């Protein structure tokens, strides 16, 4: 087993990976940009290496600097997390060539699956159902127009190298196709270094259902059931759950088998996710393979009792999977929601800035994976995820109630967050009934605005905050404290003791 690993990521996922590594007796190395000095993932590591300027190209996307950091600290393996270089075959190859272990699939498998058109061809040949559409990238506007006309509008423009909802545009009419293709290509070039795009038939209100797979280096491949990730905004998942309310045991078994077939066709090794769209009649279509740990992996951990990061590290170290498909069981229901720095009342626009106060929800059946703390900065340069709250319970209604309880304990002040939007979604009859699909938010919450339930308490809270003034003692408030005391931070404890 490795003695030391480098985590080439930031935020909640870096912290989460380091926790498992520590439990396995493996030392951790953090990397960080100048925008992340003092960030939680830096505090969580045994060693930390500053990569340079905030710009991702100079830091978290800089392959050379990251490999040099691993070398200089004596790390033996690199975990890429999700995003950044996680699905970049050139990075996996460079790690390999540096004599280090990449904790993820082999570079060539990643390259094959990362090219969405090649992946579609591979799946089609392996008997995995695919969505009708182009099987080759296309940049010529005329040929794109012709292909779209043949498929019939609406169509989906997708970046060949895309993922995580990035680099995707729905086009409803021919007039919008050119600009959509250009924007999509430009985003893809900037985000993934590859501007190739292709077209797909657009399905009407499908569900997004994905299957987690695990494959070791000894030919052993199994699945860990599904995750339903239909609730999305701007094509990005915000609520994920397992089991899916739409699957029965037969469909679950068939989708699981298709995912294992897809992984085996690609020669997959390590943890991966096979994404499908599930239409309203129970047909499922291959979407893509995410060749990395997913943001939403915790719901699978909660219902199977497995630690996916531990499994990833074990597989990367060459160990065989210690269980068979038959020994994997699921129990209960788990739901995750993502908490970004964003304004749900304003098109989910990012809301970077300082976190003035953060409080973690806690309690039985709740898990909060976060990368921030009071005093953190949410930099403008990166994906603004703050954390993920996961609830698991005996059944779906109890898991929903628990997640609402957790969100009602969750406080992040200073930046806007979707916490109250999420509470409203979870409380809605449509969500409770499990009738989710990828246009759920557009259909049921098209122009959500915050409610006024707590306005009276907020006004009273504002008055109480003004009335109490300087806050330096615990206990019943007693009017504003006098001004000009020296250094209450330092002597608070002593005052407390003296009361």
């Amino acid at each position, binding site marked *: 087993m490795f003695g030391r690993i480098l985590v080439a990521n930031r935020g909640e996922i870096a912290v989460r990976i380091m926790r498992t590594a520590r439990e396995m007796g493996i030392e951790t190395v953090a990397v960080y940009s100048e925008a992340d000095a003092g960030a939680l993932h830096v505090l969580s590591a045994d060693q930390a290496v500053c990569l340079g300027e905030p710009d991702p190209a100079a830091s978290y996307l800089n392959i050379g600097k990251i490999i040099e950091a691993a070398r200089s600290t004596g790390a033996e393996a690199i975990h890429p997390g999700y995003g950044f270089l996680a699905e970049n075959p050139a990075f996996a190859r460079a790690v390999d060539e540096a004599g280090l272990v990449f904790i993820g699939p082999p570079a060539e498998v990643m390259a094959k699956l990362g090219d969405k058109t090649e992946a579609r061809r591979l799946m089609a040949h392996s008997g995995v159902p695919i969505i009708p559409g182009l099987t080759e990238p296309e940049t010529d506007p005329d040929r794109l127009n012709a292909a779209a006309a043949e498929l019939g509008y609406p169509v989906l423009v997708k970046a060949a190298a895309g993922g995580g909802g990035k680099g995707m545009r729905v086009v409803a009419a021919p007039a919008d196709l050119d600009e959509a293709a250009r924007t999509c290509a430009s985003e893809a070039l900037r*985000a993934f270094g590859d501007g190739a795009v292709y077209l797909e038939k657009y399905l009407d209100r499908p569900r997004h259902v994905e299957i987690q797979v695990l494959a070791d280096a000894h030919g052993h491949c199994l699945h860990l059931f599904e995750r339903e990730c239909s609730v999305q905004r701007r094509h990005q998942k915000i609520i994920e759950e397992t089991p899916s309310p739409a699957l029965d045991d037969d469909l679950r078994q068939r989708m699981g088998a298709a995912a294992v077939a897809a992984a085996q066709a690609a020669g997959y090794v390590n943890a991966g996710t096979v994404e499908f769209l599930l239409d309203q009649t129970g047909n499922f279509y291959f979407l893509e393979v995410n060749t990395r740990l997913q943001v939403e992996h915790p719901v699978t951990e909660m219902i199977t009792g497995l630690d996916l990061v531990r499994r990833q590290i074990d597989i990367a170290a060459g160990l065989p999977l210690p269980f068979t498909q038959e020994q994997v069981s699921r129990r209960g229901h788990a739901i995750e929601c993502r908490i970004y720095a964003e304004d749900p009342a304003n098109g989910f626009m990012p809301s970077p800035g300082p976190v003035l106060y953060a409080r973690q929800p806690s309690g039985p059946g709740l898990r909060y994976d976060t990368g921030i703390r009071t005093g953190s900065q949410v930099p403008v340069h990166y*994906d603004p995820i703050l954390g993920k709250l996961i609830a698991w319970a005996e059944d779906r209604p109890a898991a929903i109630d628990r997640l609402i309880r957790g969100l009602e304990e969750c406080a992040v002040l200073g930046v806007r967050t979707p916490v109250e939007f999420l509470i409203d979604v979870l409380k809605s009859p449509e969500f409770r009934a499990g009738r989710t699909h990828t246009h759920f938010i557009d259909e049921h919450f098209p122009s959500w605005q915050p409610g006024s339930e707590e306005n009276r308490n907020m006004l009273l809270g504002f008055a109480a905050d003004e*009335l109490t003034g300087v806050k330096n003692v615990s206990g019943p408030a*007693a009017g504003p404290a006098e001004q000009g005391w020296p250094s209450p931070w330092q002597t608070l404890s002593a005052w407390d003791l003296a009361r």
Partner: protein
Amino acid sequence: MDLRVKLDDETHEISAVPLDSRGRTAVDIAGEQASLSVTIVSPNHLHLEVDGRGTDIFTARSPEGTWIWSRGRARLLQDADKAARRGGNGPVGRIPDKVTPPTPATVVRLMAEVGQQVEAGQPLVVVSAMKMETTLSAPYAGTVTAVNTQPEARVNPGEILVEIEPAATGGDEEES
């Protein structure tokens, strides 16, 4: 103590008597009375008992106002009189009716040039922030009088990237 407090787009009149030695007070919000008991749990955490019901409140002060949290919901509240003096004009985070980015961003593409006639809603600039592209469109029809940026430039909210002279009135775009 009398306060005029801005919450979302409304202003509320609040008056309260000073806390007694046990942290109790009476508060009047727009004529509605509440008996309130306040415990300071930590610098950012107050516990209120409002007419006998307990509730937690988290608070954090910033230059724009005070963030107040209650049961999963958070708002930036402002002292309306102070906000007026500062010239503040509404909550943080709304898209202004000028061609300016909503967050610090990088210019990806420019689709406007000086002298060009533009329609309301016509895309003028594409900016990128946090790996997401946003198109800034013309807030009204008119003629482009200045383009104050270029591709790859780092731009900030408040910077007018494209100036437009309105078609009908011919007024100063800075006041539109």
